[in-house]
């Protein structure tokens, strides 16, 4: 059983970060005068500890530093500062022993287009020193498990996105790694395949393997992870079990309200309502209300609004969720 640990991990890109690591980066400018290269801080002192046998989720919006974290832990990105360990091995100093125990599914398909699905698995097994009998056995089993047997001998060039994603995950499991990294594993998958994938991930974890997955899908993070870290701008902003994290949002319910005019007096009144824990003004004429109850607050809110001369224009109620948690900590939606 192998765990994962990082200490004060920093990464500053001074060129465009690789795909899937860091979003919204300004392109490097090339003029006659040499301008200083733009620096993009992808990770800003991230310390994590993932127990052996745990499914750990990294949740955050695009550009939060999730892929960079995975990149560093999988030897593909050199950290600017800090340290990372897989089990006993320092990732940057002992790359080969680290690569032996990890399996990686990148955010973007990176299958070997010159090979068939079966060959991809077989050659991957060969890189990891499996003998030919073992390669055949494992490849057959994985193709079956991922429902790819009927396409096993076709070139992957013609595969759909979902099939490529399934094969990528099968390949990462081919050498039976102790630690599996999944970067946005269900992006672009249909709901049925997503469920199959979740089942396979849980099953793999039950066999004692550590899994680190990144996602910006709260449902997925909630369904799979034992513990979650929410990260934004390369920093951890919350850590805990999905249940603990959700319980940490004041009230749990979030009412996003929009009024016709801006009225500070109205916000004061809202704070006095029973069950309201926190009211945050939102520019220009809105408020985020964290409360113990949801829909039952609306009639009172509407009455207060009418009496303050600020008509209620829009209401959005969400139940306790990781999305609300993210919003509470950052003031931004995960999807922004």
């Amino acid at each position, binding site marked *: 059983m192998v765990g994962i640990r990082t200490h004060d991990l920093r990464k500053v890109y001074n060129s465009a970060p690789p795909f899937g690591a860091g979003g919204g980066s300004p392109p490097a400018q090339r003029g006659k005068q040499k301008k200083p290269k733009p620096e993009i801080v992808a990770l800003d002192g991230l310390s994590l500890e993932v127990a052996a046998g745990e499914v750990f989720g990294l949740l955050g919006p695009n550009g939060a530093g999730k892929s960079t974290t995975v990149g560093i832990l999988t030897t593909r990105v050199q950290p600017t500062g800090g340290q990372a360990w897989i089990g006993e091995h320092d990732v940057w100093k002992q790359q*080969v022993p680290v690569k032996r125990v990890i399996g990686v599914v990148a955010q973007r398909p*990176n299958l070997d287009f010159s090979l068939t699905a079966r060959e991809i698995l077989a*050659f991957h097994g*060969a*890189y990891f020193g499996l003998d030919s009998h073992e390669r055949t056995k494992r490849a057959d089993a994985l193709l079956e498990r991922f429902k790819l047997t009927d396409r096993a001998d076709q070139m992957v060039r013609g595969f759909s996105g979902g099939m490529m994603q399934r094969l990528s995950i099968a390949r990462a499991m081919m050498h039976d790694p102790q630690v599996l990294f999944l970067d946005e594993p269900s992006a672009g998958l249909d709901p049925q395949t997503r469920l199959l994938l979740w089942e396979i991930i849980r099953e793999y974890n039950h066999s004692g393997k550590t899994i680190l997955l990144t996602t910006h899908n709260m449902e997925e993070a909630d369904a799979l992870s034992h513990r979650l870290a929410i990260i934004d701008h390369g920093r951890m902003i919350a850590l805990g079990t999905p249940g603990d994290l959700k319980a940490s949002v004041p009230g749990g319910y979030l009412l996003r309200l929009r009024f016709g005019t801006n009225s500070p007096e109205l916000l004061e009144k809202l704070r006095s309502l029973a069950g309201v824990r926190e009211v945050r003004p939102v520019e220009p004429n809105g408020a985020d209300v964290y409360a113990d109850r949801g829909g039952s607050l609306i009639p009172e809110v509407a009455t207060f609004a009418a009496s303050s001369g600020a008509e209620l224009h829009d209401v959005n109620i969400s139940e306790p969720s990781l999305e609300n948690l993210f919003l509470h900590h950052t003031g931004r939606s995960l999807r922004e």
Partner: protein
Amino acid sequence: MNGRAFLAMLARDAHVARRNVVVLLFQTFLQPLLFVFIFGRVMVRSGYMPASYKSLLLPGIMAISMVFTGIWAVAMPLISEFQFTREIEDRLLAPIEIGWVAMEKVLAGTIQALLSGLVVIPAAWLILRPVALDFSRPLLFLAVTVLVALFAAAGGLALGCTVNQTHIGLMFSLVLTPMIFFGCTYYPWSALDSFPILQKAVLINPLVYASEGLRATLVPQFPHLSLIAVLIVLTLFDALMLVLGLRQFRGKAVS
């Protein structure tokens, strides 16, 4: 180094090359053999070129084929694998130092370049018959061909990890085409005697040493550069390209 992983990667490249063998054959041999046919046969039989030109041409054609096969075999897959398909990631994550992933590419490219050189000889010989080739110094011939093949593959590594996908066309027109025409492939270096500046300038072109080296071992009856000088310079070029290529490869592989 992990020998099993290295061999598995080599097996993967051999497997892919076998699958693409027809395309590879056309890519490698069509142009040099057409050249051999037009210059060595049409021009000679029609009397525009002396018969001795045939023997002079063959080592040059062999040098072009080898250098291009090697560069192509390593550079083109690397350009697309690093920038477009990212399919090399699977090998970068294999339990082996990433420098060896690059060395495997170089070895595979060297083998392909050697094969192309060795196939050009009988093919050209068939078209050009009779042609006077001297195989009396097989070890020297082997040394030159291996150095040329290694140069091609290591050069492919350096180019493939440097050139951007959008600049492939530029790589051909700006690097490879001048390299062929100023590479003493279709004429011996001594033919530049009356262009003294050019004659000095082309000495920075590694293809000059490849052509002249092959000329020195296969058709020593023609004037050629000193074989010792050729061996030394080719070794230096090989080392330079390997160091440069490995550095560029690491830069690409790790961000």
